[in-house]
Each structure stands twice: as structure tokens, then as C-alpha cells.
């Protein structure tokens, strides 16, 4: 039996999907701006943040409204509460993209420290994790959610490689490189944080689908 409520849930899912698309776009643009030293693109990420903030508020409001009016239970309840948490994770991801764009705006004024090789690799991992986590939510796909969780070590590994290179090969050898290296270190840290947010989304999706809390219980993923 199709309920009126089902349509409301579909609308909510669409809104969260839109939030995910905004987040993906913000990451892509912020790193493209870094790679291409594109001031306008970096600025557009900063400027679009208020639209993402508005969408976050509107999704939250919709969730609260649905809870108040329909008093959802079971999978409906899990879908809405998970939706609220994912909404918040996506907003944080967008904020981090803004942080990357702001670091980029500062770096653009200075000479290029080094060709960017591993940061784009880490970006690609982060973007892929964002995409997979949103797909996992939309499709209720646990296997995809687990794939997100399994991708996190790769992100951590790349972060370690970049950190090592920047501190040992640049900052230690040439202290004058520190201001630029620190900006790149921050960007690396931001990208890795984005990956952490996607693992939160993946854990929430697993709870939504099978009502099992895997957050803070890594042993459950091995079962």
C-alpha cells in the first residue's frame, strides 16, 4: 500500500541527494581551483556556502515536521533520523570545501611550492567516498557503505605520505617553504576529514538498513 507518507519520504530523499551533489561539487571545485590556481572558482565555493547552509536548514525542518506529523516508526524512523545525521555530515563536508577554497585563495598569491600529485589523488579518494556514501544512502546499499569504510585506510595512507613529504622534504630542508607547506598540510588534513565524514555517513546507512550500530564497534564489520 503506497502511503502519502511515502511520497514525503521520497521528497526528503531527493533533498538529501541534492545536498550530496552540492557537497561533491564544492569539493571538486575547491581542489580544481587549487590545481589550476583559479581564484574565481575558489571564490564561487565560498559564495555558494550560504545556499548549502539554507538547504541544510530546510532538510532539518522537513525531518522535524515529518516526525511531528507522522510519528514514524521502525524503518521510517530510522530513515528520517539517519537523513538528519547525513544532512549534517554533508554540511560539514561543504564547510571543509570552503576551508580548502580559502587556503587556495591564500596560496594563489604565492609561487607554486611543488607540483601537486598526491593531493589530487587524495581528492579523488575523498570524492569517490562522498559519492559512494550518498549512493549507499539512496539505494540502502550496505555493501557500498562497507566499501566506503574500507576506503578510509587508503585516505589515511595518502595523508601520511603527503605529510611526510611536506615536513621532511620541504619544511625541514627549507624553512622559507613553511608558510606554503602549512597551507598544503591543512588542505591535506581537510581532505582526510572529508573522508572521515563519509565513513560516518556509511555507518549511519548501515544502521538505517539493518538497524545495527557499527559506529564505535569496528569488530561488527568483520562479521
Amino acid at each position, binding site marked *: 500500500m503506497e502511503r502519502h507518507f511515502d511520497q514525503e519520504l521520497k521528497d526528503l530523499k531527493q533533498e538529501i541527494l541534492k545536498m550530496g551533489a552540492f557537497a561533491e561539487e564544492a569539493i571538486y571545485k575547491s581542489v580544481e581551483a587549487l590545481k589550476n590556481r583559479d581564484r574565481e572558482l575558489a571564490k564561487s565555493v565560498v559564495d555558494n556556502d550560504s545556499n548549502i547552509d539554507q538547504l541544510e536548514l530546510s532538510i532539518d525542518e522537513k525531518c522535524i515536521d515529518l516526525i511531528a506529523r507522522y510519528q514514524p*516508526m*521502525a524503518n521510517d524512523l*530510522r530513515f528520517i533520523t539517519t537523513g538528519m545525521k547525513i544532512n549534517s555530515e554533508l554540511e560539514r563536508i561543504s564547510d571543509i570545501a570552503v576551508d580548502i577554497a580559502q587556503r587556495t585563495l591564500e596560496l594563489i598569491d604565492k609561487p607554486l611550492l611543488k607540483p601537486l600529485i598526491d593531493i589530487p589523488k587524495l581528492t579523488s579518494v575523498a570524492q569517490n567516498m562522498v559519492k559512494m556514501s550518498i549512493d549507499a544512502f539512496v539505494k540502502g546499499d550496505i555493501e557500498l557503505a562497507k566499501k566506503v569504510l574500507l576506503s578510509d585506510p587508503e585516505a589515511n595512507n595518502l595523508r601520511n605520505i603527503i605529510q611526510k613529504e611536506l615536513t621532511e622534504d620541504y619544511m625541514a630542508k627549507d624553512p622559507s617553504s613553511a608558510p606554503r607547506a602549512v597551507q598544503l598540510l591543512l588542505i591535506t588534513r581537510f581532505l582526510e576529514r572529508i573522508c572521515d565524514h563519509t565513513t560516518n555517513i556509511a555507518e549511519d546507512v548501515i544502521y538505517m538498513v539493518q538497524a545495527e550500530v557499527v559506529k564505535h564497534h569496528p569488530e561488527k564489520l568483520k562479521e
Partner: protein
Amino acid sequence: MTNSKIVTQNLNLWYADFHALKDINANFEPNKITAIIGPSGCGKSTMLRVFNRMNDLIEGVKTSGKVLVDGIDILDLDADLVKLRKEVGMVFQRPNPFPLSIYENIVFGEKVHSENIKKDKLDEIVEASLKSVLLWDELKNRLKESALRLSLEQKQRLCIARLIAVKSDVLLMDEPCSTLDPQATAKIEELMRELKNNYTIIVVTHNMQQAARVSDDTGFMLLGELVEFGKTQDIFTAPKDKKTEDYITGRYG
């Protein structure tokens, strides 16, 4: 050895050829509220009525299996029904006070169960029972008034007080709030929470929000079967059976 107050073991019940309860196995714990939910005709009220043998009054009723109350099978033909109905009392959908005074409503059961009871003792019972259902302050100066003049909520509280007066251990409640407004419902639910400290409460309700709010355990029945039984939190957030999920999310039917 179980500590459960009521245990059903392969309980079946037929109304003539109609198989109304099918192999029900459940444990009802003391000092807890257990809600039984399910669509109309699923057998939930029938099960409630088995617990104090009210179905005996219906012609053609046949049962099999066991219903143990404090370890004693109440389906046994030799079961002491007067004692059973004193211990396991029922509150109905529409409050049904006797057309007597408030005072007489409360002492009615006690007078039936014990002869030559002193007036002082009866006064004590009335005060204690009305205090238990939080009606004493409201009604202590109106005890001689007819119970029929009370509000619906007060009548329902009075009916609960009547059970407390005869020292029931188990309170069976069949849709106890369905005729009450939301405010009165909230008050009865608060009372249920108070009472569970001393009683085993089993409530049949169509109101899923009420079941979710007030109960510790919940059972979902469908077509005479107990489909799922467990902690209320689990049933309403993560039911194991698809049929339970469909029912509580309104997809059933």
C-alpha cells in the same frame, strides 16, 4: 525457573470452528507494562480475556496449552476462578462503574471476597485505593456521590482503584484510553507508569504511539498468531519481522 508473572505455553483457543489464538508462547514480566498490538480481530483481546478466563462465558470456546499465573495453570478445570479474577483484574474500553456511590464501588469487591469486614478497614481500603489512582484529593469529600457522575477519566481511574482494592496483582487493560481525550489519556498513562511498580500490567491498544510511550515489552499479533514479542524499543525501532514492520509503519492492509 522463570520469574515471569504470566507464561503462555502453546496456547490455542477456538470459538467453535474459528481458530482465534494459535500456539501463543509468551512471558509477561512482573512490574512491567506489556502492550499487545495488532489489527482488529487479530486475537489480542481474546488473549487478554484468557488471562482471567473471561472467555469461559462464551459458548463453544475451547482452549489447549497452558497459561501459568505464578506457575499455576489457570486453564486447569479445577482452577479457583474467584481467586483468579481477584488476582487478575480487568479494565475495559468504556469505564463501567457500578450504579453505586464512589465508596461502594471501591468496597464492592472486598465485600464479596471477605465477609464481616469492619467499617474502619473498608474506609482504609477506600482511601488507599483512591490514593493509588491519584483520585483521593479530588473525591475524598464526594465519596457518597454516585460514581456515574464522574468524568470518563475519573470513572476509568475508579475502575482501576476497584482492582487495587481487592489486591489484584495483574491489571489487564483492554483499550483503556480509547474513549478518553488526549489529556485524560496522558493522565491514565502516568498512572500506569506509577502502578507498574507494584503490578504486572498488560494493555491491549490500537494506539501504537501509546504502546510505544507506555510499555516496556510489546507483542504484535496477526490472525491469531503472536508474530513478534520483545522490548518495546526494539519492536518500534527495529522490528525483526516484516509483518510487524508493515503494521507499525501503516503499510499493512
